[in-house]
Structure formats: C-alpha cells, structure tokens
C-alpha cells in the first residue's frame, strides 16, 4: 500500500491519455457485462424452472408443429399424470380471477409487468393483431377481456410476467385454420421420480401416428428451446475475444509509451535502491490498476444498463443481473489483461541499466 501513491501519480501523469484509455477499457467491459449477462441467461436457461415435476409434450419433429386436442384426455389419464394445464401454480392469481378466466370465453390473464407496461386494468378490452392466425371472417383483429393479472414471486422468473394467456376454446372456434390442434401440453406428474417413465408413457400414446410426440421435463425443454438460438456462449466468446484483443493492443501501447517516457525516473528509483523486482511490480500494478479501474466502471455501468434493459425490453432478450459470477469473471479478465499488457513494459523497466538510462542512452 505504501507504493500506491507512486502508482496513482504515474497514472495521473498524463491525465488525457489516462482518461481515454480508461474510457476504452470501460467500453470493453460494459460490452462484456452486457454480453455475459445474456450468455449467462442462456447458459442457465431451464435451471431455475420452479416445476421440476412438470413435463412438456411437443411434436417429435418440431415444436412448431401442432398436436391434436384429442391427446389432452389421453395424457390426463396416463398413470402418473396428476394434471394437464397451462395455469402454473407459482403464478399468484386470485381464485376469483382464476374462476373468471375459466368462465369467460374471451377472457385473458396477463402478468403484472405487462399490465403495468401498457397500463391495463381489469375489465379492459385488449385488441391484438394476429400475424399467423386470422379469424374465420378474415379479420386479423382479436379482442380479449382482461379478467386477471398475475404476479410471479421469484425475482429470477419476473420475465414470466411479460406474457398474456387467453382461452384456447375461444381461439380454436374462431380461427380460420388449424382447428382442433394445440402447440404443446404441460402436465404435472404425481411423483417427480417417475417423470422419465411417465414421459415415455405419454410418448407411447402417439407412437407410429402422424403426430408422434417428444415429452421431456420442463427444464430440458427450456434448455433445448434456447439451444435453437445457436451457441450463444461461442458467439459471445468470439465477440469478446475480438474486443479484448483490441483492448490489449491499445492499452499495451499506452503502457509501453508510459514506461518509455519514464525510463530516467525508473533509473533514479533503481539508483536509490529499488530492486529490479520492485520496478517490475510497480509497472505491473500500474497496468492492472488502469484496467481494473476502467473495467469496474464498465461493469457497474453494465449492471445499470441490464436493469434498465430488462424493464424496457421485458423477456424479449433474456439477461441475468450483473451479479457476483459476472464480476468474478470480469475481475479475473481485468487482472489477466493488466498483467499481460504490463509485462513487456515492466520487463523493460526492470532490465534497464542505470548508467545507460541516466546518460540517456
């Protein structure tokens, strides 16, 4: 710590250069924070699903293909299946609203966040413009009556509040095509240990039919759904590699210049007794501090940006808060880059010959 003022004063020697370098580092780690937040969200997809006792049944070919409504009763009567539903128990919806939803053909329930975003309240009529399913009359306009607003207690699952649910019966009767089909079924098993066996039994219901199914736990379904976006980790990794590579060149040049300018000063330090190792550590500390200061500011900003983006774009892009794991990874990268860009200038400072440096050679 007693050398801290030496390191700080070295950084403040050329304030403009330091500020611009800090801004570059800040920008790089702001990007890292945002991208790592997205990558973490994709990597953790399905891990936080509340219902580990839930199964999702979709078409074996693609989840975009529909399944017949007739499967509902057969799935419900499969041994081990306790319930087939689309109203999740973790959603906090009052019994009256739940009942209103069941009894109102044109009824819809929405998450609290979505209702807040559009300032909807119970009793409102919500018009939707369909992009896939027109009504039998040819109109693309669907109108629903808001009968319930649910909220999700788990902060990690808040994006579940960005959805709107309406009754399938109303939709199926009115739509122009695809009648009698559903997208997927969600069922709850009575014993989670039996989930694999029950999934197999459900899939056996449609075996050798034109609508063979694939049943898996909700967690596995979410993970495979997310994997359809591609290898997010690899994409983020490639972007960040390019960003950090540029950062290393930029800050490496800055550090090399900073040390080159101060060769006589390092010579003086060595003259009065600073060892080669002390000089090496001083330069490395300066380099690491420069990156950590800029990087920490970048991650702080990323934290604020992620919070703001989560509110404004809702669940459209999954993002995890910039928490301890992202900070730990970020700090490790900062220290690594700091050591990397400081190593060559530090070696130069360490190896300089006092008499040559003092003589300006």
């Amino acid at each position: 710590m007693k050398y801290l003022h030496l390191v700080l004063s070295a950084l403040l020697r050329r304030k403009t250069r330091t500020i611009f370098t800090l801004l570059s580092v800040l920008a790089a780690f702001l990007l890292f924070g945002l991208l790592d937040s997205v990558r973490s969200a994709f990597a953790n997809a399905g891990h936080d699903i509340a219902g580990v006792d839930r199964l999702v049944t979709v078409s074996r070919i693609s989840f975009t293909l529909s399944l017949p409504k007739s499967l509902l009763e057969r799935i419900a009567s499969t041994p081990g299946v306790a319930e087939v539903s689309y109203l999740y128990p973790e959603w906090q919806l009052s019994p009256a609203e739940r009942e209103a939803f069941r009894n109102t053909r044109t009824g819809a329930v929405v998450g609290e966040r979505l209702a807040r975003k559009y300032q909807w309240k119970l009793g409102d009529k919500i018009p939707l413009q369909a992009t896939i399913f027109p009504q039998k009359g040819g109109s693309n306009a669907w109108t629903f009556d808001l009968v319930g607003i649910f909220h999700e207690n788990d902060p990690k699952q808040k994006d579940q509040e960005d959805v709107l649910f309406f009754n399938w019966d109303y939709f199926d009767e009115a739509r122009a095509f695809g009648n009698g089909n559903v997208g997927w079924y969600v069922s709850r098993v009575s014993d989670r240990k039996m989930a694999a066996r029950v999934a197999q039994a459900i899939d056996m219901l449609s075996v050798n039919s034109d609508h063979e199914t694939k049943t898996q736990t909700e967690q596995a379904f979410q993970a495979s759904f997310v994997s359809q976006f591609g290898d997010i980790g690899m994409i983020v990794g490639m972007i960040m590699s390019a960003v950090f590579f540029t950062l290393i060149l930029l800050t490496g040049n800055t550090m090399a210049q900073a040390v080159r300018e101060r060769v006589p000063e390092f010579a003086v330090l060595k003259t009065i007794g600073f060892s080669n190792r002390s000089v090496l550590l001083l330069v490395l500390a300066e380099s690491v501090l420069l990156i950590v200061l800029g990087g920490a500011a970048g991650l702080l900003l990323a934290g604020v940006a992620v919070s703001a983006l989560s509110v404004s774009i809702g669940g459209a892009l999954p993002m995890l808060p910039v928490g301890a794991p992202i900070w730990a990874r970020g700090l490790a990268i900062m220290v690594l880059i700091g050591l990397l860009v400081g190593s060559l200038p530090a070696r130069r400072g360490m190896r300089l010959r006092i008499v040559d440096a003092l003589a300006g050679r």
Partner: protein
Amino acid sequence: MNSLVEVSGVSKVYARGREQIEVLHHLDLQIPTGDFVALMGPSGSGKTTLLNLIGGLDVPTDGSITVGGERIDRLSEGALARWRAAHVGFVFQFYNLLPVLTARRNVELPLLLTRLSAAQRRRNADIALELVGLRDRSAHKPGELSGGQQQRVAIARAIVSDPTLLVCDEPTGDLDRQSAAEVLSLLQRLNREHGKTIIMVTHDPKAAEYASHTLHLDKGTLVEHGELPLP
C-alpha cells in the same frame, strides 16, 4: 584517518560496437571517512564512470572497490541495490526528481524501502527538508520550484536515509552562480557538521574550492592529488 572508499587496480572497459574502450586504467584511490573530494577532469576522462563505480551503480571490469569495509564489486545486483539504499545518497546534475510527486514525497522515496511507518517517513522527510531550508515548500511539485530549490530537494532526498556517502555528479552544472553557491555551501555544511563523506564530480574550479581535496582524472588515470585551502 580510516578510508571509507578504497579503489584498487580498477579498470572499466565499455564495448562500443566491436570496439573496446578502456575508460579507467588500473586506478588506485583511497578516500578517508568524512572527506569532501572534488573529482575534476576533461570530458571523457572517466569522472562519472568512477563515481558510478564507487556509488555501486556499475561494476568494474577489473580490480576491487571497497566502501565502508564492503567489497561492493562482488555484490549481486539485488544486494548492490540494498547496499545503495542503506549507504549512499545520490545527487545528479539535473536533479532527477519525480515531477508528479511533491517535494516531500520525492524526499520520502528512499524511505519507502525501509520499515518506517508513514508518519515516521513523513517526519524524517520534513527534517531533511528543514535541513536544506525548504520545509515550507514541501507540498510543492518540482515544476513549482526553481532549479536551486529542486537541487536542494534532491540533496534532501539523498540524505534522508542518513547515508555514509554522498556522490554528486555535477550538482551545480545546471544552476546559476548564486544557486550553485547555496547548494555547495549546503554540501559543505553536510560534510563539516554532519560528517558526510562527499565525492563530487565537477567541471567548475569554483565549485571544487568548496571541497577539501581535488582529484584530477585524465584519460582514465588519476594525474594529480591537490589539497586546496578551504574557502
């Protein structure tokens, strides 16, 4: 009187490309403890090289250098750095202060290598600045001080760890006559009142008058020992 510095048969050869240049030729020299020696000679005579060798900044090609009973030519680089920190103070022609640090912080630098607390370091730095008459300028940065004041800060830095030996390379070379006289008087006082042994390289005969002895070097050889009257 005991010799603080004993230079025996010292040669120094530098390589410039393929050419070997012998800067010092089998030089013998003894400097007693408490002496104030002026080292004079034409450019290229080896004054600064000899000073660097005695101060432990460089090592001889041949011969031995003993300072305070220690064969410094045999010390490793790390040991030599520790030895310099404990035993030698350096004063340069261009002061060589760190421009981003205040006078006090500059003076404190050698004390960072000791186990003194921050408060003790600060106190010792203030005492050294008091000694050179710049206590009131301790918060100023070198750029805010005159050349003479900067050199006095450099002297404070050189003496703050209470070294036995002060080596000064043209300490007045960049100063006007009045500032030079102040710096030389200060060095003389450090020698007379505080018992510091001082070796000073200078081109200026007036500066040499402040020393108790003058040594002349020419082409790497000691050509004359002169005892001068004290000014």
